[in-house]
């Protein structure tokens, strides 16, 4: 049974009615599917089959406490389940029945949550979804290995064909999914390389184009492109249709990340769930920072650079940095850039003639939601 208190979907207010209706329809199924999959993966039976050994009881306890529960807690706190929703939506839009494809649906969220643990480690974040981060709970080493296992459990799930965890996919679709997920995992790391190297090397001379290139192969992947690909492949889309949906996901992911960067320093409400302006504390050099550095006069630009270098958590200094970003007009320019990608999304959406008009409307509304969302 799912705890009814977990259904806190007040953010749906940012969604258009037709999208909200579809989202509300699939949300309980998504949550149940994800939680059931996690519980099954965490069972001794699944682990023993995957690892090929009989686990001593002490090992089962250790894995439950250090591997299963810290990860599970990321899902029980909150979580919008946007990625599994996208998978459900695409499968249904292609004429399939999402309820018969629980594994592909769960995979989208399992990967996302594992990536959150890795992000939290990289940024040494204290909070995630309003609770303590995994590495702050079980230590950095265990959390890293935990995230790695959950990130790649999709391959184990896709290899299973038993009665309980059969993915519902044929061998061709399974192979396509394995290769696409493996590729997305890899390119996400390449994009992250730029994200981690710029602050380390104090590379304030990066360009907006270079930043966007890194975003295409970082957050864009797990946020939008991969769920849409999973939905397309699981729903039986052909290669061209999958490519179209992936291209749409890439544009949407770009818009999503630009908005996310803005929300990181300027959350739209009090339910952001993360420390405010964490990106500034981490010295992140994102689009709005690059724009501000270009637009501010040399003294103010220098000051913003200094703040980014000192990795401060001092709220007064963080507010000063946010003020500098605002003064420069960087938020507005970045939001304009996001709107350009939104416009591309809409064009790509209208080209997807293999979807019904209603499905295209929902996708278009989802794009608007990404821009309008307050958290």
């Amino acid at each position, binding site marked *: 049974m799912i705890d009814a208190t977990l259904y806190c979907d007040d953010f749906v207010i940012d969604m258009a009615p037709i999208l909200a209706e579809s989202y509300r329809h699939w949300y309980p199924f998504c949550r149940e599917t994800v939680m059931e999959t996690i519980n099954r993966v965490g069972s001794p039976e699944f682990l023993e089959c995957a*690892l090929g050994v009989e686990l001593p009881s002490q090992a089962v306890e250790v894995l439950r406490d*250090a*591997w299963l529960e810290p990860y599970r807690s990321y899902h029980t706190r909150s979580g919008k389940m946007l990625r599994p929703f996208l998978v459900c939506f695409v499968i249904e839009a292609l004429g399939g029945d999402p309820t018969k494809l629980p594994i592909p649906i769960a995979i989208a969220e399992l990967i996302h949550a594992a990536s959150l643990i890795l992000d939290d480690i990289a940024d040494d974040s204290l909070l995630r979804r309003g609770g303590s981060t995994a590495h702050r709970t079980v230590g950095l080493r265990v959390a890293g290995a935990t995230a790695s296992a959950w990130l790649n459990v999709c391959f184990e799930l896709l290899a299973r064909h038993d009665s309980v965890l059969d993915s519902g996919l044929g061998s061709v679709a399974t192979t396509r999914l394995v*290769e696409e997920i493996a590729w997305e995992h890899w390119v996400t790391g390449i994009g992250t390389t730029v994200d981690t190297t710029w602050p380390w090397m104090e590379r304030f001379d990066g360009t907006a184009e270079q930043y966007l290139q890194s975003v295409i192969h970082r957050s864009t992947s797990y946020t939008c492109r991969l769920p849409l690909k999973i939905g397309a492949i699981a729903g039986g889309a052909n290669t061209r249709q999958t490519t179209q949906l992936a291209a749409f996901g890439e544009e949407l992911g770009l818009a999503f990340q630009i908005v996310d960067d803005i929300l990181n320093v300027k959350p739209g409400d009090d339910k952001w769930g993360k420390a405010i302006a964490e990106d500034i504390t981490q010295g992140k050099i994102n689009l709005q920072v690059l724009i501000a550095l270009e637009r501010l006069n040399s003294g103010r630009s220098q000051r913003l650079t200094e703040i980014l270098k000192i990795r401060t958590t001092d709220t007064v200094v963080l507010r000063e940095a946010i003020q500098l970003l605002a003064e420069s007009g960087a938020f507005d320019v970045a939001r304009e850039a996001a709107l350009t990608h939104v416009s591309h999304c809409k064009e790509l959406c209208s080209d997807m003639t293999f979807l019904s008009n209603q499905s295209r409307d929902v996708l278009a509304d989802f794009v608007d939601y990404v821009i309008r969302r307050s958290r």
Partner: protein
Amino acid sequence: MIDRFNAMRFFVSQSLWQILPAARNDSWIKEMVDTPRFGWDWEALMQGYFDPLSAWAAVHNARLGPVFAGLLIDALGGDSQRHGDVLAALELHFLSAIMLDDMRNGRDVASSTGKQNSIPLPVWVTVAYNTRQLSVVLIARRTQSLKAEARRRLTHQFARFLFQQGVGSVLDLAGSENAKAHCTVEEFLTYLSLCSGIRSYGLAAHVASAACDLNIDDETMLASVANELGLALRLLTLSRGEDDFPVVECMVHEQPIHWRRGVMLKDLKKAAERVLPLALKHAYEINDQVGQLFSEFATFIHAPACKEGVA
């Protein structure tokens, strides 16, 4: 064996250097990532990924896993020289594994790569992450020497291995911190069998199986026997009270095992003496060439007599 080992090691190294870009390489990115829409910051890619990886690969150059895989391909009647990309992908997997081990175990990762002495943890974590995921994509995209079905199976095998490796690491690290009781020798053997260092022999066997296009049953058998060999060799090292060991002029870094409270070195030696002959017997049951390779490899790696002591 030393000549064969060194020749294969040289071949694997050459294959590895051919796979990794030494400088900006747009065609590499196009093949392994895609055609960039906006343009990469190559300076950052080199500083934050390719340079640290190359420096790491130059220092950690034992190439034990792919050498074993290459020799196994030849023992199975295949031609290892046709499979340089596959062996290089396997080596990338090992390189990332020991990178992660070093980070988990607090060794001075940065200084062990010479010039790269100031790389912060998030960058190193990303290097390790990228390298292991790259190994899977290389198998999927760049191993035309494999038949399509063999490539498909090996890609999936590499990817699944990452899950198994993660769980094994959690078990070891958290088990050592939270275990409520001492473990028995048999339980220890189970924990040990889950560690990446041992299962790497199995992964090498999967590589050789793919290269030689073995059927699933033969592949499963070979991987199982290779894991037995890995377990036996690791037990021998541990029974000497060591984690790392020298091969030719290199040190082979093994994943330190944390969870072994109450297990005595003499017990490990006894276990090794039980497991190794079994592994060799099973290898000879596959065929004489495989049996001979396992036997020579075991002798070459772990000839020194075991010392007794307390863990």
